[in-house]
């Protein structure tokens, strides 16, 4: 079976500064994979590289076997990869309903249609309502996204990300800035919504990482120093030295 994501020898330089070097990572179909590492290790850059936000300087990235490095974000999205953002990134002046509906449109084949009434598309309406129900925001459907609470915006962010039905979901610090209770809620939500899909997650909260992930990769200075099951990572001396050691244990 082909890997959901396969990164080979990827390098990213900004001018003379190498941010990512010799990056190799593979994520199996249906796997929940967490990427951890200290601040500035290049986790978000890795996300941006995979999702097409920035293009790698060299190396190749494959999604379900297809070469995607160098493609634009919307092309990669259409091939079945969807991502969320570390900083809430929604359509602030549009309602919650319209936010999710926009994310459903391409996946239901509406493309750039200007001859259809958007309120009259049963499949779109159905899917939008299901997603809103899933993220528990159905009762807030007519509120402009900019007026939601922070936790609600984070949930909407996840809703927009999964709405297109992508097979590979990438979440960038989905629980950042959340309280303990909100985090637990969000983790349960993520676990449920990514059922049967491939999940790649960047997270600082170690309890979330070790509770959620099937496999973990540790990124330090733009290079993956270890990849394995939570147990293997916990006992890896290199990881202990480079990363967990820093936390003062």
């Amino acid at each position, binding site marked *: 079976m082909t890997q959901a994501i396969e990164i080979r020898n990827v390098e990213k330089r900004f001018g003379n500064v190498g941010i990512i070097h010799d990056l190799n990572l593979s994520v199996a179909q249906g796997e929940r994979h967490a990427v951890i590492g200290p601040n500035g290790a290049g986790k978000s850059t890795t996300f941006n590289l995979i999702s097409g936000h920035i293009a790698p300087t060299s190396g190749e990235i494959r999604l379900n076997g297809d070469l995607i490095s160098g493609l634009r974000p*919307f092309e990669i999205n259409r091939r079945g990869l969807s991502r969320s953002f570390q900083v809430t990134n929604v359509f602030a*002046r549009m309602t919650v309903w319209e936010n999710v509906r926009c994310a459903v449109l*391409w996946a239901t084949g509406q493309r750039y249609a200007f001859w259809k009434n*958007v309120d009259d*598309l049963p499949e779109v309406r159905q899917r939008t309502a299901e997603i809103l129900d899933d993220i528990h925001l159905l009762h807030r459907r007519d509120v402009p996204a900019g007026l939601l609470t922070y936790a609600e915006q984070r949930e909407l962010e996840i809703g927009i990300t999964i709405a297109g039905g992508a097979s590979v979901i990438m979440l960038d610090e989905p629980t950042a800035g959340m309280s303990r209770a909100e985090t637990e809620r969000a983790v349960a939500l993520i676990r449920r919504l990514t059922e049967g899909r491939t999940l790649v997650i960047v997270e600082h909260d170690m309890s979330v990482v070790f509770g959620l992930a099937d496999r973990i990769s540790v990124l330090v200075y733009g290079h993956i120093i270890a990849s394995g099951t939570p147990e293997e990572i916990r006992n890896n001396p290199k990881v202990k030295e480079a990363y967990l050691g820093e936390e003062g244990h």
Partner: protein
Amino acid sequence: MSDTATSARDLPVPARGQSLRFYGIWVIAAIVLIVLPLLFSSGSSLTSFSLIGIAIIFALSYNILLGQTGLLSFGHAVYYGLGGFAAIHVMNAVTAYDWPIPLPFIPLVGGLGGLCFAAVIGWVMTKRAGTVFAMISLGIGELVASSSLILRSVFGGESGITTDRTALPHMFGWSFGPQIQVYYLIAAWVMISAIAMYALTRTPLGRISNAVRDNPERVEFIGYDPHVVRYLASCFAGLFAGVAGGLTAINFEIANSAYLGAVQSGLVLFATFIGGTSYFFGPILGAILVTYLQLGLTNLTTVWQLYFGIIFIGIVMFAPGGIAGLLMMHRPLVRSGTLGMVIPSYLLALVPTLVLVCGVILGIETIAHYTESQGQGNVIALFGIPFDATAASTWIIAAVMIVGGYAVARITWRRIVDAWDRATTDARDRGHLA
């Protein structure tokens, strides 16, 4: 999972419940357009209504860019003007070669002219949004406006190109010679264009345009190319601006380089912004007000552009949502029944604010008159009262009205803010405000 499906299916269709009210508004608009010339049948009001109708289409087309897609264009008159020239040339060709195209279809030709230019130039223009788009639109505007003076065979130089609208094949026995017939032609196209542009906002493309306006970066991650969205939006904006240009060509029986210029581009931006870009009907209000002011003020005062500037700055600073935004602010208050709490404070503020405004007008007119007339014909008539521009008393009255009016008005404005606080708190308590 079955729970999810049922609750989703139980959802009401958002549009259906309000459909009666929705169609009612369009029917009322159509009736107003039909009845207006019967109530005000003078030649000058017919001319005004015709110009207002054209301005409505033009401003709505501009709002496809500004309000719907978030593109600030400084060269929208290019589509309008080229639509006008396309219409003029086709009208002359129809007359010369006896083509069977009646006059009512000529605005469509204008629209196609605008659309073609947008389709060709738009791809480059819409590559980027924001400042880059604004600058390119400014450059294209200047480019086309200056070429219109150079390419004389196409644009007719400074005098422009004329036509005779009555020489085209007649329809329903109408020659379109009398202004009333031209008015009804314009009114029909206002309805067609407004309905079409409203419908556009309710399509998948229309909603994705809103998403591009709010957050073009995120749009890329839900499968859409913001460049394509911006391009299509500018094509539609060009199409309807061209319709407006075609109607102008019919109305004046002439097209000249002024149609394409920066002044025209500025006016449409002005009308759209004053009306309010966040609501579909905003530009309609703006087009009515600006056209009406433009026609009325030019007869009343030589410095009418100064008033335009003051109004524009006032709206930008104090009501960035425009007139439509100001009106819609009151909707939650109307729904919760707390509007009565703010009305008295409005009435109270009205008197000192009017005094302030009159003082400003008197001041401006006195200064303008004093500097322009060089001592001859010193008397100016304002609000039906004659003032002597050289008399010290006039200057003192103006100063007292401005200073006194402002001092009192400030207090009453604060009362409005207080009343608003109480009214919105009540509205929120009653659950009518998020």
